[in-house]
């Protein structure tokens, strides 16, 4: 069964609006409504000399909150297919609840990962403030991870959209568990890519946008047999190019 076009569009528009809204908060910070910085360090004064000083400037909890916003902005659009599948497979009155539980489960996994990631970021900033070395190191790890069979395995698992029970407590429980599972496969495939922009002393926002594009693209690719393979997963880019060509051709004719 396929969800009606109307519901499909409603889901797409809602999710993309939420994501865009958070992007605006992160990138533009209109009227400085955000009191915290999502970007890790903006150490403008003398280099931090002690961990406590750094933590003063980059308190852990607001850092984690910023991380959460970043995850919402970057990852929410990736959940559209799963949310659509939950909608069409659930009774009307429970559709929102189950989709919400799924998203909640998914985000909580990224938040747990965030605790470790933020700790690593703060630690590296303390040891090597304003250095490009951590970012370059992570970039190399991300590249190796990108072409590894383990990453392919995680991506394949991300396509495991199972049918949930329809009734009662099992339905709620499994929606949440589905979110947990989907979150784990997503962290597994994307942790290095997510870490990279966070460690960049400059151009953080640009890197974040590029990483989002790559991560959405690679989740659109079909599952493949896991092996070492040099493979750029730029499906979104390929679609954009192909569809533009078709539109141009139609206009000419």
């Amino acid at each position: 069964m396929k969800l009606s076009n109307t519901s499909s569009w409603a889901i797409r528009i809602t999710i993309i609006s939420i994501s865009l809204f958070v992007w605006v908060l992160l990138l533009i910070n209109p009227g400085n409504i955000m009191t915290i910085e999502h970007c890790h360090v903006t150490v403008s004064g003398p280099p931090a000399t002690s961990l406590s000083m750094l933590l003063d400037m980059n308190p852990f909890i607001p850092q984690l909150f910023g991380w959460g916003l970043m995850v919402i902005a970057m990852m929410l659009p990736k959940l559209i297919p799963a949310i659509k599948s939950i909608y069409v497979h659930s009774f009307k009155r429970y559709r929102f609840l189950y989709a919400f539980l799924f998203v909640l489960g998914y985000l909580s996994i990224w938040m747990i990962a965030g605790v470790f990631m933020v700790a690593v970021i703060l630690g590296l900033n303390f040891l090597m403030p304003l250095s490009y070395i951590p970012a370059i190191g992570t970039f190399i790890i991300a590249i190796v991870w990108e072409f590894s069979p383990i990453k392919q395995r995680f991506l394949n698992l991300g396509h495991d959209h199972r049918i949930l029970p329809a009734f009662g407590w099992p339905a709620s429980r499994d929606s949440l568990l589905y979110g947990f599972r989907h979150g784990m496969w997503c962290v597994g495939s994307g942790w290095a890519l997510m870490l990279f922009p966070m460690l960049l002393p400059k151009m953080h926002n640009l890197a974040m946008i590029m990483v989002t594009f790559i991560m959405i693209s690679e989740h659109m690719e079909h599952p493949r047999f896991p092996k070492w393979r040099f493979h750029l997963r730029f499906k979104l880019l390929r679609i954009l190019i192909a569809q533009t060509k078709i539109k141009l051709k139609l206009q000419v004719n």
Partner: protein
Amino acid sequence: MSKYLRKNAWDANNGGQFIEKSNEFTALFWYAKAVQVMQSRPIENPTSWWFYAAIHGEFLINEIKDPNYKYLNWKNISYISPKADLTALPSSNLVDSFWDQCQHGTWFFPPWHRGYLVALENILRDIIINELSGPSDWSLPYWNYLNQSTAYAEFKIPPAFTESTLPDGTANPLYVPERYGPTGNSDIYVQVGPNIQTSANDECQWNETYSASAANNASNNSGLFGQFYGGGETGFSHGGSETGDLEMNPHNFVHGMVGGESNSNNQNGLMGVPATAALDPIFYLHHANIDRMWAAWNQTGKNNNTANPNWLHGPTAQGDRRFEMPIDPSGTAWPFTPEDVNSTEHVNYNGQTYTYTYDDLSLTSYETIPPTKLHEKMLERFSKLGVRTVEKGFKMTKKRNPELVGASSGSLTLNSKATKTQVKLQSSSWKSVSDSIMKASVSKIPDEVYLQLEGVKGGSDSNFISVYVNEKFVKSISLFGLLSASMTNAAHGNSGLNFKFNITEIIDDLHLKNDLNMDSLNVEIKTKNPLVEGKEITVDRIGIYRVGQ
């Protein structure tokens, strides 16, 4: 420029044989000889039989780990000659470009297979002309198992495919021992006939719409399996669930019947599983027939394929890999789109126009009475439900709004013969269905009701299942493609297959008997072949859906 003519494997080959009455060789003989040549080449060679079969699908790189199905790994298939040299694989470039391409459960099913046949036919013809000094106009024969000829029993596999030797004394490559037939005793034929639930037919030919986007008005039928004639509008789909009418029956049905399941060990025949099917030379005669039916649907039935650019431009329009066939031993590619193979009159083959047709383009061979059109069907439904209608007084829209109204709790394991289960209906959702039927009027079109088997998994590809609701027979379907759809790390992410059944009539009848006020439906699923231990079929969930306007 010549036009090639594909002819009937029975009628135009002296009853499916190698030698004409005039003592000349038939097209089937030249086919067998050319297949021999292709089979003598190692799998490394893109023009070998083995490479071509792997283009459709393979269990060589995609090795099966499940001990129950290891016999399907190519290394274990005795039909594959040692000359194939499976230990020396082609370069990974060739493998990535060409292998595992076949399109199933998608609107790309008809055009992909057309391109596949054109490429193979050209390789075979080159061999027949240049290496065998055979006829220069040789074309692929087709096996029309639905032909009601009185001269031959054409539902049987042509005899050329069961001989052990060719007239020249060499081994016959058209004979495949791993072919078990519909009853599992190696008697190979297609079950046709009104008294068999799992029988092949050509009802699909009456469908007038290629796919959802080609439905230009609401009176277009959505097809027997809800995916129209050509299939669901997907991207590149190497196996999927949006199977069109042509693909399900006769295509999948014939695969399952010819391959079959052996009575002695319950193994699937090669034709019964997509990743081994193209090893069997009968595959290409079966597909030539499917291609013939599609051509007849266009030319005789006057039906158009979809003009959706995402179909015409092929899967690259949706960011997926392109369709391409190797045309020489070095692996030169002929990339093609559905637009290139839209008509058999001008196939764009590698920069040239390639023309072929069939000696029989009758719309149907078996079915004789077209089904009632959707509009009349609607009128019938209204009168059944006691709604007064004025001719043309109702308007159907293209809007379809599916909503779950009932579901089984937990998954289901199918038993060997019949599995019964109750599918619980959710009271408030079900009430909207019964309301829509009870309050039906010309301005309020009543709901349609569907049953969906969700997440069907297993490896019984040659098997069939028949579905009953409240003791009424609904429909039978073939499980072709089930094993690959159930494997992890395959192209589907092991989500299994889904099958959709329209059960509106049964629900209407329940309403007429005042039985709509119920809290569950009784669903019974029967399998055609027995299921042995370890090879069970599971169903994640049975869902009942209403589709409102």
